[in-house]
């Protein structure tokens, strides 16, 4: 489809990436130094932020990647460039933090600045573009994800990054971090599981009864339209009333604020994609296949469990993917009504204008949604492959 290329041409995307790298190296600070956690930052250029030899290595590698991204067109070569760039850049951030923090000073904070972010962005863009062009099969994508996660885990565990402000923020609240992480996962996955338990049978029923289908889908799409914080608010009043009048409910932990309204709201949001995709999945099962199964003497239950559901599985999984990514994000807002989760750090951070605290909540959330979307996309493709 592409027009024929002249014999020598510069790659356009590569050129954009090279420009970004140039700006990052020569016109933007690499790191920010702050005397205390909430003091205003002082910018440090790459040559100031690292020992001179290390700074030279980072600059040389980045320039090499810039030149390479303009000249190399093969996806694998580009991926290699991106990996080399990241492998030098990411540890150097930790070294920079150690270098900039005065010895024995536990108040000073070093965080990445625009230059670092631009470099990381350029290398990631190169990698993402390479992955998009390589069109990996689901197992390849899962392997790439596993490699990325292991590299990140190594950087975190090895202590290279320990002098960075966000990890200092983590170390002062490691206990609450894992507590909120558990709460976040519980909210996101628990409400998803509940929505599957209710939504899939509802979808099966809706597939068979037209009136039920229209009513349920319309009702749920209205729910989906309501902004999260408003839905939390709308659930608080009735739940509060239940807790006040039914002692058993209160004893079970059902209250107007906290995790209960958040859980119910996430559950309600999750229902639409699951019900709609169950119906869509069942609808696309060819009638001839179901007829053949009937002809073989299968009962209605056997047809559903052995024929229709397996054939509908990829579409249902696609619905679960939407729900999981949506829930992991929405669970952040639960912190506003005392529901816990990573949002607690985000909102505390906003309150204290402490960006590191905000990032401590935001980065795991984004990472989780990102991983969840890759894993479930791969599962959808594997399920499709199993049917083909």
């Amino acid at each position, binding site marked *: 489809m592409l027009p024929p290329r002249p014999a020598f041409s510069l790659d356009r995307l590569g050129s954009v990436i090279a420009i970004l790298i140039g700006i990052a190296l020569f016109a933007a600070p690499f790191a920010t130094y702050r005397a205390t956690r909430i003091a205003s930052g002082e910018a440090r250029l790459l040559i100031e932020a690292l020992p001179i030899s290390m700074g030279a290595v980072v600059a040389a590698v980045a320039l090499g990647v810039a030149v390479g991204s303009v000249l190399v067109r093969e996806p694998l070569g580009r991926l290699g460039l991106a990996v080399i760039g990241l492998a030098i850049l990411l540890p150097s951030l930790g070294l920079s933090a150690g270098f900039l923090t005065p010895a024995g000073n536990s108040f000073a904070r070093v965080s990445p600045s625009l230059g670092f972010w631009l470099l990381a962005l350029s290398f990631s863009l190169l990698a993402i573009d390479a992955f998009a062009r390589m069109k990996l099969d689901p197992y390849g994508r899962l392997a790439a994800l596993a490699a990325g996660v292991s590299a990140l885990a190594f950087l975190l565990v090895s202590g290279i990054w320990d002098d960075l402000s966000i990890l200092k923020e983590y170390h002062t609240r490691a206990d609450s971090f894992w507590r909120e992480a558990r709460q976040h996962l519980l909210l996101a996955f628990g409400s998803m599981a509940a929505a599957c338990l209710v939504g899939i049978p509802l979808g099966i029923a809706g597939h068979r009864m037209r009136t039920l289908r229209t009513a349920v889908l319309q009702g749920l799409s209205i729910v989906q339209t309501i*902004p999260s*914080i408003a839905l939390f608010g709308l659930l608080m009043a009735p739940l509060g009333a239940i807790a006040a009048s039914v002692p058993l409910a209160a004893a079970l932990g059902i209250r107007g604020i906290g995790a209960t309204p958040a859980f119910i709201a996430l559950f309600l949001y999750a229902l639409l994609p699951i019900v709609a995709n169950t119906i869509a999945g069942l609808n696309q099962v060819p009638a001839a296949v179901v007829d053949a199964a009937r002809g073989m003497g299968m009962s209605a239950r056997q047809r559903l469990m052995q024929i229709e559901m397996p054939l509908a599985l990829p579409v249902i999984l696609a619905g679960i993917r939407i729900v999981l990514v949506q829930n992991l994000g929405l669970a952040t807002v639960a912190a506003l009504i005392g529901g816990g989760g990573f949002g607690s750090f985000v*909102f505390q951070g906003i309150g204290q204008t402490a960006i590191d605290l905000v990032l401590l909540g935001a980065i795991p959330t984004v990472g989780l949604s990102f991983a969840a*979307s890759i894993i479930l996309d791969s599962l959808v493709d594997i399920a499709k492959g199993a049917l083909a």
Partner: protein
Amino acid sequence: MKVASVLRLTAVVLLVLFIAMPQAFAFLFEPLTDNRAPAIYNQGSLLFLTLQHLRTVALATLASTVLAVALGIFVTRPSGAEFLPLSRSLVNIGQTFPPIAVLAIAVPLVGFGEKPTFIALFLYGLLPIFENTLTGLTQVSPQTLEAARGMGMNARQRLFQVELPLAFPVILAGIRLSVIISLGTATIGSTVAAKGLGEVIIAGLQSNNIAFVLQGGLVVALLAILIHDGLGLIERFAARKLGRSTDEVP
């Protein structure tokens, strides 16, 4: 359809009445308050907050529509084709970012108030519109384009007279999705001191006043549902019009 129209009309009337003169509804919310706390939000006019909320959403959506459609057109032209695979992946990745994370990260960069909210709405609003512009433009059938070319249309004429009109309903659906997400994100924007309806809910949460939380939630929810509904009507109208006009082509 009759029932739907009656419901729609009732909802609009109730919403407008409540926003214009909330005190008239105080009796409904009084049972929810204790210690003689105010039953109706009293730290600002609901009408003003609603208009402010809608203004933020409208401006951000307008900005993201312009940029997203332009980008969508760019990557579907031969000169931008190299960016197509990357931009598709970026949209997929971008959508895994929760809006609240975008909002929270913008605060340290630009300070509290309208600005971070606008940035979050603008950036997050780009995704559905860009995605739908791509879908809309790439699903125009090659035969149609070939016919347009055969009629002697140049690239610009094909874009404005064939591709964009055919993609219009799909782009509109993207804008609708973007508006709905923005309405919700703008509500959360009140946690970073942007003027908007979220203020009512947040004030209620802070002072433990369920009446505020409920009325804020009701107004935001009704507003979102009605706008979603209204944009849906426009979309269906556009699709119908398109269906007719293509039928007229022999």
